[in-house]
C-alpha cells in the first residue's frame, strides 16, 4: 500500500514542475538597464537632462514596485547602471562594452546626441544587443541591414525640419517670403537639418536661397556673418546651430541692431530657458523656432502629461543645475517606451524587445508626441511644429504655435515688428 501512495507523489511533483511556467525559477530579481551620460565636456548640456529624465522614470517605476514584465507576469524592480563618458567617444566605447560584457545589462540605452551614440552602434550590433537610441538622430545609423537600433525620442535629422520647410513653402510664400538665407554649423546634426531644409525648398521650387553657408561648430561670433547675410537681402533667415551658436547668433543680431523679417533658430525652442537666460527676452522676440514637447501639451495615451512631468521633475530636482526642457522629456519618453515594451514583449530577448517596441509605432502617444518608427528603426513621428516667440504682458516671452494648422493656436506675426 505504501508504495502505491508514494509513486504518484513524485509523479505529481514532476507534473507540477512541467506545468509551472519554466521562467518561474528564472525570474530575474531586477531588470538591468545600462546607459551612459556625459557629466562634463561639450555634450554635457544635452546629456544630463536626458539622463535625469530617464532616472525619474526608473525611480517612479521602482516606487510602484517595478516595471511589469510580461514573460514573468510580475513587476520587477529596475536597476539603472550608468557610467560617465565625459563626452569622450573613446571612453564611451569602452563603457558601452563594459555595460554589455561586464554588467550584462538587459537593455542598452545610448547616451544623448549623435556623436556619443555613434560609437555604440557597431558595438551593440556586434553583441546583438538592441541599442535604445534616445536622441542620436544621425541619418547614417539607420540602415536595412542593422536591426539592432531604434530611435526613440527625436525624429531623424533628415525629417526634423519638415514643418519649417512646409511653412516657408506654403504660408510663408503667401505672406510674401521669397528669399531665404541658411546659415548652419558644420556638424552632422545641424548639417543634416540644413540639407533637409534646402531639399524641402528646392523641391517646391518657389523660394530662392540667396545665402547658404556653413561655419565651424565652434564659431562663437557672428558679427561679420550677419552683415554678409544682411547684404544678401533675405526675407527669411534660418540659423541651424548648437546652443552656443544660437546664443552668440541672437546676441549679435540684437547688438548689431539688425532686424530680420523672419528669423529661425533651433535652440530658442529646444532649450528656451537656457537661451532666454543667456540673451535676454528682447533678443528672442518674434523669433521662430521648434515647438518642443516641453512647450506643447500633447494628450498622451500613456504616461504623465507634460504638466505632471514638470511637477515631478521640479519636486525631484529642484535647485539642481540640470535644465528642464525638451531633453528631459526625451529621457522620460525613453522610459515610457521601455515601459510599454516590457509590458508587451514575449521575452527579454533583444529581437523580441525590438518587436515589442516596433509594435508601439502608430499606437503610442506620449508627452513627446506620436511614436512612429520606420523599418530601419528611425523615428518618423514626434515631428516638432513651428512656433514663434512673442512678447507677453510681463516682459517675458510666450511661444505661439503657428504651423501646422491643426496644432496652431496663433497666426505668425510677419514681418517681425
Amino acid at each position, binding site marked *: 500500500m505504501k508504495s502505491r501512495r508514494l509513486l504518484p507523489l513524485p509523479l505529481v511533483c514532476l507534473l507540477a514542475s512541467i506545468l509551472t511556467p519554466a521562467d518561474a525559477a528564472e525570474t530575474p530579481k531586477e531588470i538591468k538597464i545600462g546607459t551612459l551620460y556625459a*557629466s562634463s565636456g561639450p555634450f554635457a548640456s544635452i546629456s544630463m537632462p536626458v539622463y535625469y529624465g530617464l532616472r525619474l522614470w526608473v525611480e517612479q517605476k521602482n516606487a510602484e514596485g517595478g516595471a511589469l514584465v510580461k514573460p514573468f507576469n510580475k513587476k520587477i524592480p529596475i536597476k539603472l547602471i550608468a557610467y*560617465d563618458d565625459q563626452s569622450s*567617444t*573613446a571612453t564611451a566605447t569602452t563603457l558601452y*562594452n563594459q555595460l554589455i560584457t561586464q554588467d550584462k545589462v538587459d537593455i542598452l540605452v545610448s547616451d544623448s546626441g549623435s556623436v556619443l551614440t555613434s*560609437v555604440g552602434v557597431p558595438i551593440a550590433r*556586434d553583441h546583438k544587443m538592441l541599442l535604445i537610441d534616445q536622441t542620436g538622430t*544621425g541619418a547614417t545609423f539607420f540602415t536595412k541591414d542593422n536591426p539592432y537600433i531604434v530611435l526613440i525620442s527625436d525624429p531623424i535629422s533628415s525629417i526634423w525640419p519638415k514643418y519649417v520647410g512646409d511653412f516657408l513653402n506654403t504660408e510663408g510664400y503667401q505672406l510674401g517670403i521669397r528669399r531665404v538665407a541658411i546659415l548652419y554649423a558644420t556638424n552632422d546634426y545641424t548639417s543634416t537639418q540644413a540639407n533637409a531644409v534646402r531639399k524641402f525648398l528646392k523641391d517646391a521650387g518657389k523660394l530662392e536661397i540667396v545665402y547658404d553657408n556653413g561655419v565651424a561648430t565652434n564659431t562663437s561670433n557672428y558679427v561679420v556673418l550677419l552683415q554678409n547675410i544682411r547684404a544678401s537681402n533675405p526675407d527669411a533667415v534660418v540659423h541651424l546651430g548648437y546652443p552656443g551658436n544660437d546664443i552668440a547668433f541672437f546676441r549679435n543680431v540684437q547688438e548689431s541692431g539688425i532686424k530680420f523679417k523672419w528669423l529661425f533658430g533651433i535652440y530658442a525652442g529646444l532649450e528656451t530657458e537656457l537661451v532666454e537666460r543667456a540673451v535676454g527676452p528682447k533678443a528672442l522676440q518674434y523669433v521662430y523656432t521648434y515647438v518642443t514637447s516641453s512647450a506643447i501639451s500633447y494628450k498622451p495615451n500613456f504616461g504623465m502629461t507634460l504638466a505632471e512631468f514638470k511637477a515631478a521633475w521640479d519636486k525631484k530636482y529642484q535647485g539642481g543645475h540640470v535644465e528642464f526642457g525638451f531633453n528631459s522629456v526625451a529621457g522620460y519618453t525613453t522610459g515610457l517606451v521601455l515601459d510599454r515594451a516590457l509590458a508587451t514583449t514575449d521575452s527579454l530577448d533583444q529581437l523580441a524587445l525590438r518587436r515589442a517596441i516596433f509594435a508601439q509605432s502608430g499606437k503610442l502617444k506620449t508627452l513627446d508626441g506620436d511614436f512612429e518608427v520606420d523599418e530601419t528603426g528611425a523615428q518618423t513621428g514626434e515631428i516638432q511644429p513651428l512656433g514663434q516667440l512673442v512678447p507677453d504682458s510681463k516682459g517675458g516671452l510666450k511661444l505661439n504655435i503657428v504651423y501646422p494648422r491643426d496644432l496652431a493656436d496663433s497666426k505668425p506675426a510677419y514681418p517681425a515688428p
Partner: protein
Amino acid sequence: MRNGLRHLIFVLVPVVAAFAVLPWVYSNHLLLFNFVVFLVLAQGINVIYGFTGYLPFGYVGFFGAGAYGFSLLVLRMHAPPLLALVAGALAALILGIILTPLLRLEGAYFAIASLAASEVVAQIISNPNLTNVTQGPYGIRLSGVYAPRFAYSVAVVILALTLLIVVYLRNSRFGLALQAIRENPVSASMAGVDVVRGRTIAWLLSALIAGLIGAVYAWYISVFYAETVFDLGMSIFAIVFALFGGTATIVGPISGVAILYGIYNGIGIATPQYFQLIYGILIMALVSFLPNGVLPLLKRWGINVP
C-alpha cells in the same frame, strides 16, 4: 645586441603575449583594445620625443590620417581591410613627409605648429564641401569589414612591431644618435651625426606607428566622426603616459599606460562624478613629485630599466 635580446625576451614577449591572451580572460575587449592603442601611441611619442626631443602636440593628426586613409579606401574603393591598412599607414606617412619642414622649429614652437597642422587636417576632412570624398561632417560608417577580433589581433601585431622598433632604438647607435640630437643638436652635428636625416627618420617612424594603429582603430570601431579620431585628448594622454613612465626607455611608456590609463578607467567605472577632478589632481601630483617619471626613482634604487 645582447642587451637587445634580453629586452626582447623580458619585455616585448611578455607584453605582447599578455595582450594576445587577455581577451580570453577578460571580456571587455574594447578596453583591452584601447589599452593597446594607447600603448602604441605612447611608444610613438617615445620615438619622437623620448629619443629625439620633439614634442608633437598634434600627434593625433597621424592617428586620424591613418583612420581616414583606411576608411576612405574601404568606403570608396571597397578594398579589403589589410590593403586599406597599408593605405592608412601610407596616408600618415605622406602627412609626415609634408610636415617635415616643421622639424626646423624648436621646442614649444614645434609643439604648437604640429597641433595646428593636426587641426588643419581635421578641419579639411570635416568640411561639408568635401563630403563626396571624406564624408565631411557626417562621419564614417564602414559596413562589411566589421571584424573586431581579427582587428584586435592585428593591433597586437602592430604593438609587437612598435616595441621592436623601440627595442632597436634603445640598443642601437641610431637610437644613441637620436638622443644626442635631443640633448644638443649643434654638438651632435659636430660629432658627426646627420641631424636632419636622423630626426626625419624618427619623425616618419612615429607617424607610421600612429597611422597604423589609427587604421586599425577605424577598422575596429567602424563608426566615427572626425572629432573622434582627431581628438586632442588622445595626444595629451599619450604624452602624459609616456612622460610619466619615463622616456627613451622601452618599459617607461608601457608602465605609464598601464598605471595611468588603468587608473583612468578604474576611476571612470568606480566614481564617475569626481572623475575629472581626481584625475586632474593625480596628474598634477605626479608631475610635481615625480617630474622625471617613475624611472629615475627606480634608477636610484639601483634597478637598471630597459
